[in-house]
């Protein structure tokens, strides 16, 4: 089967996302769920994720400002965020979340602050990359969108 240049680009982009650890296996799972009934499933889920995670991160930001010593609360928020990242396989973001929670366990506020910045950064980067990815994907067109597994 011959892939158009666009398809190859998309495949390459996806491969990079995986190789660089931005995404993990869960993302494949989402792709497998995509079907005729839900042709844009993956993009919809990703969009949902970024919307919800932004909300969660705003909560954390606020908590760090207003009640920084409440590590239990911070941990609880981050737990939620972590759970959310696992839904789309946002590996790097998830790892930063884990780190943050470790700092919470230690009661290390400074660590938490730094860690949270990392979370935010990874979150933003992933958002950008996936946005580009889906844009490219849309250019290919629905019929050709059946991405070859593994890229």
């Amino acid at each position: 089967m011959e892939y158009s240049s666009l398809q190859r680009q998309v495949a390459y982009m996806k491969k990079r996302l995986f190789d660089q650890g931005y995404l993990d296996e869960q993302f494949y799972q989402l792709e497998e769920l995509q079907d005729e009934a839900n042709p844009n499933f993956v993009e919809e889920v990703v969009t949902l994720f970024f919307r919800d995670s932004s909300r969660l991160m705003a909560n954390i930001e606020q908590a760090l400002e207003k009640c920084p010593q409440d590590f239990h609360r911070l941990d609880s928020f981050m737990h939620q965020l972590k759970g959310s990242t696992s839904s789309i396989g946002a590996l790097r973001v998830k790892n930063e979340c884990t780190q943050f929670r470790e700092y919470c366990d230690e009661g290390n506020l400074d660590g938490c602050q730094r860690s949270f910045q990392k979370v935010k950064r990874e979150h933003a980067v992933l958002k950008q990359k996936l946005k580009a990815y889906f844009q490219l994907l849309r250019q290919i067109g629905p019929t050709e969108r059946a991405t070859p597994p593994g890229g």
Partner: protein
Amino acid sequence: MANPSASTRTEAFPVGLRVLVVDDDPTWLKILEKMLRKCSYEVTTCGLARDALEMLRERKDHFDIVISDVNMPDMDGFKLLEHVGLEMDLPVIMMSIDGETSRVMKGVQHGACDYLLKPVRMKELRNIWQHVYRKKMHEVKEIEGHYINENIQIMKNGSDDFEDRHLFSGADINYVRKRKDGDNQEHSDQEFSDPATVKKARVIWSVDLHQKFVNAVNQIGFDKVGPKKILDLMNVPGLTRENVASHLQKYRLYLRRLQKQNEGGTFSGNMHSDFSCEDVTGNFDMHSSTQMQQNGASSKYTFTAQKIQAQEMFSDARADDFKSISSLQVTGSKQALVCDIPDSQKVISVSRLGVLLPSKDMMLGAGKKSLEPAISRQQSWSGGIPVMQFMQYPKHDHERCSLLEDYSCLPKPDQEHQVLYHLDTPPSVISLTCNTENDMSGLSEFKPVHTNHRSSHTKTASPLSCMTDTLSVQVDSGSSNTQDYGVAFE
């Protein structure tokens, strides 16, 4: 979300399995929904635990299984788990990103039939139907085990009239019926002697027995306690170490819960005090003693009766061959308990709950009557109430059945009956002692009578009719606190 009823299911199980998914994470909710749909299940999603509970309470028979995340904003997932297990007796699967052993253990302790780690894979969801199936099989086996045991007794007495046919009816236990339909004594004998089924006979934890158990535990010292030690101290013939071990586990759970409650705050005297009964949680073995417990939050236990009929055998003292069967018909969709007494044949149909197994001692020997009710059901309570159980003294020759329950049966589905018990202490055990003597003289009404407790209970339900001459209820209180119990049958 559309929530089709069971009647629209035409394909073979597990297609169309009705799943309720509860998760506050919208992304996961969407993914899980898609995954379950792909498994050909019927999915309803819910973002809040309270909404889920409401949905479950309203549409009781609309779901087969519940999947819930552990961390919910409005209610602890474990609490939801308990509620669902107690009120609806549906299998519940927990999910979490946290796979720590302690958490998983807690899930199992609270009655989860499985604990999935996020990210959840579709193949894990594909298999969830087994939990529904297993539960059904378990229920059937309990009832079957009961009757097989009973039949052994009957057989032993050489009663030729015994009709297996009448034992069971009801679609839910078809497979049991198939086994019995042969109605060939030899054939039945074979089945009866099948060790696998006979093994299902359980120890009945009567009031006395439990008291012995508690005494033993206290004597040994709760910290140093162990099944072997307890067993030795109790010195009850026929009791096995396993019996004690499982009872001990339940007892521990119960105490732990009590502890938490006592720390947790005041007990509100209203009807919506939470109730958790370890005996009801998921496992309705009749052999566990009923303990009344209380929780802090509100709970309602709805009576879900299913069309499983069990049979209760009576034998008339005067006529060895004569058997009478009490029956209590329980209809499925409305939690209704109808006392139906055709002539002298009464069949107790029960749903769900563990079944009382007659001990070998309770025999239809020389003119004795044995009351072997099979009761299983869930009840609706707001507030704490002991689980209704029939209990028997395993070693007494004379029949004494202790009915641990408020056996108010409801003839009409839409009646709501409230029974309030004020008990001095939990765990209180309400035991109903029926002296089943001689004749089947009429049906005496059963009314629970509370002694030693200030009780302001109003019992409006129609009583269970059973063939007993005298009924007396004793309320036995162990170490318990005052509380209000409300029972609401919806």
